[in-house]
């Protein structure tokens, strides 16, 4: 009987433990995310790139604007990456330190990506949630407006805007912000439609909560999962858009730079054998996109109960 008593005790202990440790859906999702190797790799890459953008400047031996006159004019032979003269990534065609330039480009590209995605999240979520919650004719008009905006060739309009009103970061943000929220609003609207007939919304309505408060307090928090996944996938798209425009020479202006501008410069000079000018910006560009895609996929797998 002694043995059985032991078993009973351990069973009781285990049951008590189970009762204490409840698991919320978010905790579940977090666990699934941390178990996903690809997503964790992506996260580590992103943290590394962010650290590079934030702290890289302290390790640079040269400022991003100074010309190294020792290298100038013979970049192909003297400007290669080297630890001795402090140009870890070599120099660009004008003799500027590519390490400092890459740090700067990383900062700007990441900023464009994150700000663009943030605009999309805020505008798209509110717009979509409002359209979906209010419904009826308002919904139809709002979504028709989105349809119309969607069929505009936005890259061309963005270039149009940049050319007509001058190339500045503010204009770039405005232009990217104008188009980035469209997809988000559609996704959010679809989710809202399925949420709005649930009991807890009905209860809120029955107790007299005003519509805007229901949207902000009860609809939006329940959309967070979808929005988080989509936002992570949106950041690389914004980075791609900005790089595309900068590659054409229509984006950020000197002395500012971005990955797209650096890739463009590197691609223009690779004939002369200065491959590092293409390789380093391209490397950061590619690994960051990888990182975001992996994290986005990981988040989707973690938060989407259908795919479990």
């Amino acid at each position, binding site marked *: 009987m002694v043995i059985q008593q032991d078993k009973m005790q351990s069973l009781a202990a285990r049951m008590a433990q189970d009762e204490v440790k409840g698991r919320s859906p978010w905790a579940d999702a977090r666990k699934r995310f941390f178990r996903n190797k690809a997503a964790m790799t992506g996260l580590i890459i992103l943290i590394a790139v962010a650290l590079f953008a934030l702290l890289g400047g302290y390790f640079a031996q040269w400022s991003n604007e100074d010309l190294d006159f020792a290298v100038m004019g013979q970049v192909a032979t003297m400007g290669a990456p080297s630890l001795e003269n402090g140009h870890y990534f070599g120099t660009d065609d004008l003799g500027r330190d590519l390490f400092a330039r890459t740090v700067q480009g990383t900062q700007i590209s990441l900023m464009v990506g994150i700000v663009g995605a943030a605009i999309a999240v805020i505008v798209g979520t509110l717009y979509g949630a409002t359209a979906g919650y209010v419904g009826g004719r308002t919904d139809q008009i709002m979504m028709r407006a989105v349809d119309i905006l969607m*069929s*505009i060739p936005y890259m061309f309009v963005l270039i149009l805007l940049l050319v007509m009103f001058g190339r500045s970061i503010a204009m770039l943000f405005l232009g990217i912000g104008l188009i980035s929220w469209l997809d988000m609003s559609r996704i959010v609207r679809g989710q809202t439609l399925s949420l709005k007939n649930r009991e807890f919304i009905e209860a809120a309505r029955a107790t007299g909560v005003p519509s805007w408060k229901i949207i902000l307090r009860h609809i939006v928090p329940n959309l967070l999962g979808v929005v988080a996944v989509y936002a992570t996938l949106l950041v690389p798209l914004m980075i791609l858009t900005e790089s595309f425009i900068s590659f054409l020479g229509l984006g950020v202006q000197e002395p500012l730079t971005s990955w797209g501008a650096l890739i463009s410069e590197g691609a223009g000079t690779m004939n002369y054998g200065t491959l590092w000018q293409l390789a380093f910006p391209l490397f950061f560009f590619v690994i960051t996109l990888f990182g975001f895609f992996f994290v986005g996929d990981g988040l989707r797998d973690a938060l989407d109960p259908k795919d479990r």
Partner: protein
Amino acid sequence: MFAYIMRRLAVAVPTLLLLIVFSFILMHLAPGGPFTQERELPPQVLANLNAKYGLDDPLWKQIINYIWGIVAHFDFGPSFVYPDRSVNELIAAGFPVTLTYGSLAFVAAVAMGVGLGVVAAIWHNSFLDYLAVGISIGAQVLPNFVMAPILVLIFTLWYGLLPGGGWSFNDPSFWIMPVIALGTSYMASIARITRSAMLEVLGSNHIRTARAKGMPEHRVILRHALKPAMLPVISYLGPVFVSMITGSVVIDIYFSTGGIGKAFVDSALNRDYAVMMGVTILVGALTILFNLIVDVLYAWIDPKIRY
């Protein structure tokens, strides 16, 4: 079906008009006119120029004239920078080129993307699956402006196999790099979409039934699985088509192929608003038309859609 197409067209026309009006007003708001130069023109010359191009009319009249020119004569007006050439000529010179490599890239991306996706789904979790997923993940981070320099580096600078730029309708070796550069990242997206859609369909009941009654596997896949799995792919075709045209901007610049992308960027750098607007409107019209085709195709394949 006919009524559905008509209804969609009824939305498409105002959309296009809105695009025209929007870009026209934008052009008007922009600081500096088409004749702003470093050396200022004498006021009388400027007035004459403005009168010639109708720029001294009130804005609404200009817009109506412009739209009427497009609708009645398919005429986008003269270029502001090259007075002897019309916008039509500039666009017509580049359009066949863009259409050639754009449609080739489109077909290649769809065919290879769907192929990879289907193979990956059929042999799920096998070596082939991992290979296909690997290719599609790798290709996804290689947009056209990254692919273009890499391709030139490998095929022109290192191996000297392909010409690094230029265009000829008779020599396909000029086509290869633009098509690969343009299509790669979309092939990857199509492969991913196809794979996940196909996996979902292959797990559904009607496939189990088809297998249970002893249907040969290739017919199960071709007849019962492929059709529903194509729906998400089809809805992605609209954006892909648009990207083919947008991407032509990069392709034309990098490979000097001389398509409409070149006309657009040249006009953007020269502030030749007439050409910019012409290209934007043309691309907008193509986008709307293609989205219409995609929607009709979608409605035709998916019996659940009521139109």
